[in-house]
C-alpha cells in the first residue's frame, strides 16, 4: 500500500455515532486515501469536536488548516477554474477537492449529500485533523465560512489549536470567536492584508513589510 495500514472500522464506527448524535450538523462525508473527511455546520463545530474528543476518543488535534476557495467559487475569476463545471447554472457544485471518490466501505448519508448540494459553496474552509491514540485512526472535520463570517475557536476543546488558529487569522483574516489571544503570529501587527488569500498577489503589495 501507499501508506500505512489504517483500520477503517473504528473510523467508520465513530462516524456512525457522530451522525446519529448530530443528524442536523453533519453535512456530508467523503472517503479518500483511507481518510475520512466530514463536513459539519459551522455553528456546531464545538459540540461536534467535544463529542469526538470526550466520547469518541479522538484525543489529539494534529493540525488546523485554512483554505481559500475563491477560485472554486462560481463567481471566481473565469479561466482560473481547473475544469469547466458540468452543471454550470444549475445547483452550484462543491468546491474543488470535495469531489473525492466515495467507497462502499463508508456509510455516507444520502441526506447529508442533498443538504450539501443545495447549499452554495463558501469562501473559506477550516479543516481540523484529529487523531485517536493508540488505535492510530484519523478523521478530518471541516467547516465552511462565507467571507467575514466568524467561527468558534476550538481552543477550549483542543489547546493544540491555539497557534494554528492564530496562523489562520494571520494568513486568511478569519475571526475565531473566543480565542484567548487572537493576534498575528508571523507578520507584524501593522501589516495590511492576508497573504494566503487567493486575491493577495504573490509578489506582495507595495508598502508591505
Amino acid at each position: 500500500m501507499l501508506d500505512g495500514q489504517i483500520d477503517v472500522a473504528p473510523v467508520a464506527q465513530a462516524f456512525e455515532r457522530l451522525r446519529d448524535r448530530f443528524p442536523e450538523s453533519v453535512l456530508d462525508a467523503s472517503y479518500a486515501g483511507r481518510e475520512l473527511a466530514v463536513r459539519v455546520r459551522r455553528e456546531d463545530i464545538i459540540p461536534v469536536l467535544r463529542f469526538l474528543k470526550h466520547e469518541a476518543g479522538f484525543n489529539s488535534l494534529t493540525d488546523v488548516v485554512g483554505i481559500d476557495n475563491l477560485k472554486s467559487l462560481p463567481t471566481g475569476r473565469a479561466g482560473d477554474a481547473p475544469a469547466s463545471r458540468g452543471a454550470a447554472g444549475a445547483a452550484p457544485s462543491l468546491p474543488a477537492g470535495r469531489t473525492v471518490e466515495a467507497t462502499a466501505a463508508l456509510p455516507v448519508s444520502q441526506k447529508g449529500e442533498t443538504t450539501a448540494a443545495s447549499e452554495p459553496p463558501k469562501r473559506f474552509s477550516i479543516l481540523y485533523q484529529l487523531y485517536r491514540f493508540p488505535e492510530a485512526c484519523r478523521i478530518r472535520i471541516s467547516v465552511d465560512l462565507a467571507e467575514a463570517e466568524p467561527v468558534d475557536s476550538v481552543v477550549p476543546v483542543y489547546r493544540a489549536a491555539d497557534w494554528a488558529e492564530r496562523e489562520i487569522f494571520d494568513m486568511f483574516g478569519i475571526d475565531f470567536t473566543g480565542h484567548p489571544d487572537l493576534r498575528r503570529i508571523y507578520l507584524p501587527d501593522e501589516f495590511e492584508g492576508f497573504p494566503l488569500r487567493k486575491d493577495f498577489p504573490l509578489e506582495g503589495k507595495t508598502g508591505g513589510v
Partner: protein
Amino acid sequence: MASKAFKEIDLNMGPQHPSTHGVLRLKVSIDNEVVLHVEPVLGYLHRGMEKLWESQTYHQIIPLTDRLDYLASLSNNLGYCLTVEKLAGIEVPKRAQYIRVILAELQRLASHLAWIGFMANDVGAMTVLLYGFEARESFLDIFETYAGGRLTIHGMRLGGVPFDLDETVIGMIRKVLETTPKWIADIEGLLTDNRIWRHRTEGIGIIPQSDALENGLTGPCLRAAGMAWDLRRDLPYSSYEDFDFDIPVRTASDVLDRYFVRMEEMRQSLRIVRQALDRLPAGEHIAKVPRTLRIPPGEIYHSIEAPKGELGFFIRSNGTDKPERVKMRSPSFINLMSLEQMCKGNLFSDIVGVLGSLDIVLGEIDK
C-alpha cells in the same frame, strides 16, 4: 522593601541570541530568578513558503521543502513526496522505499547529533558540541556523495529517489554504522553521569503527559512523557513495517529524559539502516512520473515521524500541475507551544536548556 520593586521584570531574549537556535525572540517575565511567563515571538524567518508553493509545480516544491527544517531536509522531502504520491496514486518501487528509509534514518541521526551538540553547548558543555559535529560530519559526507548537497540535500523525487545507492555510498554507510555507536557512547560518557549535566537537566522542564498530548506535542518530547507514539510504527509508511526496531519511552518528561530518548533513538536508527541495507531489494529506484504531473481534484493529509516530531502535509489539488493549497504541520511550531508550560516556575537560566530539549528549527517554525 526593595524586593517589591524587583518583583517582576520583563526580559527580552533574542531574536539574535546564540541559544535560541535561530531567530526566535522570547519575551520573558521573571520574579527574581523564577520564570513567570515566556512568550515566543515568531516570524523573523517567515518566507511565505505556503504562498510560494501555490505558484510552483509539484516537482518544483521539493527543493523548497529542504529550507524548512534545514537540519533534516531529507525528512521534509520524504514527508512531502509521500503526500503527493498518496494523492496522485503513484506506487513507489520497493527498492526506492528502502533507500528512502536509509536516507531518512541517516538524516535522523545527523539531526540528533547536531541536537545533542547544541543542547550540551546551551548548558555549558562545549566539548560535546565538537563531538556531535565531528560525528555528524560523516553523515553529511554520505549525503554529499549521494546527492551533492550537505544541508539542503534535495535527495528525493516524486516516485522514488534521484540516484541508486552505489558501492561507494553503501561502503560509506557501512562504515558509519560501525563508527557511530562509539561516538554515541563517547557522548554519553561525557554527559550521562556528569554532575553538572544532571543538575541542569534532571527535573527541569517537566510537562505532564496529559498536557503534552493536549498541546499536540509529538516526537521524542512526547515519548519522554511516557507515550509510545511513533508514526513509523503506528501508521507505517515507506515500508517501515518491514523493520524491527524499538521505540524508546521514558516517563519523567524532563530535559534529561528527552536526552535519553534521543540517544536511544539513534541506536534504533542504526538498527533500521543496517536491516534496510542487508535486505535492500533489487529493482528500480524511481517510478515513472510524468514531468507535468496533473493531479485530479482531491485532498489528502499525510504525516511522517520526522526527527522533531510529526511532520505532516495537507495538500489540496485542483486538476492542474500546481497545488491549490499546501499546508505544512511543522513539529517544531506545535512543540514550541509547550515552552511556556515547561519553563514556568523554573529558573531563568533553565530556559535555554528547556528550549534546547525541544529541538526546534526556526526554518520550519516560521515557514
